[in-house]
């Protein structure tokens, strides 16, 4: 929501749902939970006023939202046309090039990350450079954008799934530079 929370905070809010609830509800119920969590945490909406407003709509299930609006609302802030733009300018050259062998770091942060658990400590190859982009691990926690190079990294299914891997399959994962280290003894190939 513009000016209230960013998209990474939103994703992190959804990840903070009780896991058993997360698995049992629909996708948009997760959105509802995440939005409500952020709006109440940030004091935009209090739990009490939400409860009272919800009681109104429980009693008036066909009433449109505006029916409960008191007075004349202030005009909403203009929508930033770049709100879904995550690419940032950078003069620093990327550390890795297409074809470089890399290994993902093995770490298990408590907060938000885009390094999936199934791809930690795995060897892959840089397949594509996506430019320098906002770093969600920082942005989700209100610590700023701290943009860094983003790469598409190709992993062989056997590296990810071992004996259970299906033959002749790869998984491409978009990973930020700080998730990656050069693979030991690797040559570009």
């Amino acid at each position, binding site marked *: 929501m513009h000016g209230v929370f960013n998209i990474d905070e939103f994703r992190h809010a959804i990840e903070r749902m009780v896991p058993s609830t997360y698995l049992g509800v629909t996708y948009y119920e997760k959105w509802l939970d995440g*939005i409500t969590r952020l709006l109440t945490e940030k004091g935009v909406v209090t739990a009490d006023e939400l409860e009272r407003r*919800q009681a109104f709509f429980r009693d008036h299930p066909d009433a449109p939202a505006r029916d409960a609006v008191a007075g004349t609302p202030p005009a909403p802030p203009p929508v930033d046309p770049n709100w879904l733009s995550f690419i940032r300018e950078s003069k620093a050259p990327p550390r890795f090039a297409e074809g470089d062998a890399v290994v993902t770091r093995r770490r298990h942060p408590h907060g938000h990350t885009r390094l*999936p658990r199934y791809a930690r400590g795995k060897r892959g190859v840089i397949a594509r450079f996506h430019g320098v*982009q906002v770093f969600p691990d920082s942005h989700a926690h209100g610590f700023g954008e701290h943009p860094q190079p*983003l790469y598409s990294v190709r992993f062989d299914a056997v590296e990810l799934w071992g004996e259970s891997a299906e033959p002749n399959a790869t998984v*491409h994962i978009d990973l930020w530079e700080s998730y990656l280290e050069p693979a030991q003894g690797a040559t570009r190939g």
Partner: protein
Amino acid sequence: VGKNHPRVNPYVVSRVRALESLLLEKGLLAPDAVDRFVQQYERDTGPMLGARAVARAWTDARYKRLLLDDARTALGEFGLDYAMLVVVENTPAVHNLVVCTLCSCYPWPVLGVPPTWYKMPPYRSRAVSEPRRLLSELGLEVAEERAIRVWDSSAEMRYMVLPQRPAGTDGFDENALLPLITRDALIGVAEPAAATSAR
């Protein structure tokens, strides 16, 4: 919401409407914002933009190259400015499949509203761990000689599959090809419809 989807949980309906009215009241939401959003993705976008780009790529080699190398410029021909899309090409040797294991990210501007199964945990986990078996269960047999490339949309980049043009469509123009290009084919869980189905 409630009228169109009578099975929606009444708690969810009243909760959503309460939030909407509070955000309207606080000046955080424009009065027509929700309707505009729903209309844009359900009616105006649909899977149409992605399908139109594919139909053009099938009939115009220059456009196909552009779509694969620079999707933003290619989609600009349809009036869309979408900087984050990468289009990946199916070939006789490679089949591509798109998923988001982390939070079910989806290229809304080209494919419209995501299907429910795309957002469910079974698809999100199995698409990366056993894609060939998953596709088989969905009715798409991919021979072992054909590589499967799975794209996990773990950042803000979004992926769309450029399927192979179906046999028997020689002489079809863009408009004749369009009905063959399904949403599922653009995600990679199906092939485009057979040429006969368009007639």
